[in-house]
């Protein structure tokens, strides 16, 4: 296992460097200038030039890149151009909120998607099955910004059960997490349902019934564990969608997260913040994928890592 992890670490460092470089270039190739954005439309050309010089943007791109890499090695990722604080601080202040939102959505999705998918699979072609199928299709199709606004109107304005926006206690987390989770619930439900249907048709399930096990024991101990590997894989892959959705949900609900910061930073051409945020997302992806891969060894005793 340790050789395996060692290899993955080297691979991770390479991916991080690659994503850093790609974003560094991409964000500078796109038209638009951070100094111009900061000065705005009422400034003069001299003001913009003076600011570019102060921010070090008038140096050749290669020199900027070299300086940035040297800083990155010391874990210094530069100063946010717009917020005038270290980029790492700007992102770091907001990451916990996004992690809370995404984590809650993920947990909610698994806690809802698994049981719903199982319920649909074992009662195939019943009313429950059809309801669950329709609901999961809706969950995957409904745009999340519309859904978020609808939730606010219904639960905050009309029923007055929940707050309309912002971060606070558990009550503030409900609507944003639900909005974000709905897509994933839809995906997971259908995945679990179809995966379980396939597994239920296998010989070993028939043998388990033949052994005299109750239906509950067969499903829980023989069927579901075999569905978990694709479920865990999809959950890991859906992290990207979750982060994309988080940006929208954060804006709709006024959630102070890093997704909103990233989109604003791109719009404002705040290079250091964009770079750090993308680096964090890359690192998150690498970590989640590693956890997913490692979990295979626990879910399926036949898999071993060296």
């Amino acid at each position, binding site marked *: 296992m340790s050789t395996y992890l060692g290899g993955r670490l080297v691979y991770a460092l390479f991916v991080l460097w690659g994503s850093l470089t790609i974003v560094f270039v991409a964000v500078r190739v*796109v*038209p*638009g*200038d951070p100094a*111009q*954005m*900061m*000065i*705005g*439309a*009422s*400034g*003069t*050309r*001299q*003001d*913009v030039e*003076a*600011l570019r010089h*102060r921010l070090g943007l008038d140096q050749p791109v290669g020199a900027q890149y070299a300086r940035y890499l040297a800083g990155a090695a010391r874990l210094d990722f530069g100063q946010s*151009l*717009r*917020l*005038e*604080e270290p980029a790492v601080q*700007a992102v770091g*202040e*907001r990451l916990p909120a996004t992690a809370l939102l995404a984590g809650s959505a993920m947990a909610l999705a698994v806690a809802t998607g698994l049981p719903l998918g199982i319920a649909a699979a074992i009662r195939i072609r019943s009313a429950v099955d059809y309801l669950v199928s329709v609901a999961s299709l809706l969950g995957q199709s409904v745009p999340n910004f519309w859904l*978020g*606004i609808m939730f*606010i*109107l219904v639960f*905050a*304005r*009309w029923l*007055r*059960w929940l*707050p*309309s*926006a*912002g*971060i606070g206690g558990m009550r503030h987390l409900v609507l944003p997490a639900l909005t974000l989770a709905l897509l994933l619930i839809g995906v997971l439900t259908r995945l679990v349902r179809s995966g379980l249907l396939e597994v239920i048709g296998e010989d070993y399930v028939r043998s388990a019934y033949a052994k005299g096990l109750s239906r509950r024991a067969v499903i829980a101990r023989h069927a579901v564990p075999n569905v978990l590997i694709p479920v865990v894989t999809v959950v890991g892959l859906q992290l990207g969608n979750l982060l994309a959705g988080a940006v929208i949900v954060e*804006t*709709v*609900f*006024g959630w*102070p*997260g890093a997704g*909103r*910061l990233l989109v604003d930073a791109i*719009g*404002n*051409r705040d290079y250091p913040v964009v770079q750090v945020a993308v680096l964090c997302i890359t690192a998150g992806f690498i970590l989640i994928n590693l956890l997913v891969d490692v979990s295979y060894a626990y879910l399926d005793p036949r898999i071993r890592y060296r």
Partner: protein
Amino acid sequence: MAGDTRVRGRPAFGRRRFLGRAALAAGGALLGAARRPVRAAYAAAPAGELRVSLPARIVGLDPMGAQAAEESVRVVSAHIFDTLVVHDPRTRGYRPALAVKWETPDPATWVFTLRPGVRFHDGGALTARDVKASLERMIAQKGPFAPLWAAIDSVDAPADAAVRIKTKTPVGTMLANLSLLSILPAAAMNNAGFFNRPVGSGPFRVASYRPDSELVLDANPGYWGPAPGVKTLRFRDIPEIAARVTALITGEIDLTYGLPPDQLATLRGNKDLHLQTTPSYRYYFIWMNVRRSPFTDKRVRQAMIYALDTQTMLTALLKGIARPMTAPIPSTVFGYAPQRPYGYDPARAKQLLAAAGHPGGFDTSMIWNPGSGPQDQEIAQALFSYWNAVGVRVKDAQAERAQWLDRLLKLDWDLDLQTNIVITGDADFVLRRLYTTQANRMGYANPTVDRALELAAESVDQDKRKVYYGQVCEILWDDAVGIYPFELLETYASRRAVRGFVPTPTFPTFTSVTVGR
């Protein structure tokens, strides 16, 4: 209730009575619910707390940095810090604040006498050295307001209560510029992390700040001016309009503004809310690239104005949020001089185009940044159709902000639609920065305008300045340098418990607001 509850042999509050009361309450609730489907589940705001949601988020607490021009930063800075003078939109002049009097011994020297006994939130005394340090930092930060101080020669503090500013050439806008200069404590302002919990001398102190979420200010007990009306002032960041309006309706916030007309219509009928509308310093305009054919010809430019029915656009698209504009700057701004409106005359427009050599019209394009002004999509579409009706076929070249700005500053455009705010309430802020030959923002070059703007900027006689700006307004209007269709109104929506809020054309302040029960 403790103790013996028996009264005259029967329990004072026994089961029967409880059930009776419960039945009454349930019946009442049902009746109430049947009458009005919504019951407020939130308690009224506690006395002494005002919760405001600004239309844009608070980007930071540094009044001199890159974000200094953002309205949200200016609003919160006005509550945390003080300035030497404060702009008074009613008189279009300036009131003393930290400076109690000022004089100009010669046109290039200003001497301000500071108010005695002013202390910062950390207890330190505010002296002329803090003013000097603040001005020097403003210039050094090279933020959007630094260019206002280009003519500064030196600033010094000959005494604790005296500040002397010397300029290279006379600066007529000194007071306007000073109204944007927040005074920070010289000793602390360069400390790392100062702007996470900045210290000022203003009516409120920073209690806590969670970026993108909430800024909490509490009243400064040692404030030199009239004490604030509320003990706590919270700025909640709710960017999505539906969520912000909902928060206002449910009572989660007390005041907000920057709402589109359809949301305002919903709120007008709400008995819990109070709407107040004010003219503002913000306006829409369309520039024509004077260096690019066919806009090099004044007749073509004028034709573009005659083709537009601004009155219909106002009633159909901007009801309650704008009014007609009658000069290149809004009527609320110092230096405004009303001009004769062009009017809607498509026949004349076609005539002028024919005279200029375009009888069949021509093709052109308009750049603009969606989301930068209220109803901008609707306005753009209306403009395209009015121009199309006289033969001018305009391509929609909308772009995201960074790209729009890039093309705008490179003069790589034919037409440009945008909004602008005259932040200082003084015509110099817009006219001299955008319409001089040197500024070259739309290719217009007129030495008469340059000279008038220069003289206006250098004159400390406000009446003379008004005359110069009047001349410039007339020239720009007659030369059809741009189209100035609407000046924007701002509507503030607040809960009825909020009292004492007076909206003005400049950014809102809440120091004199009280929140009743």
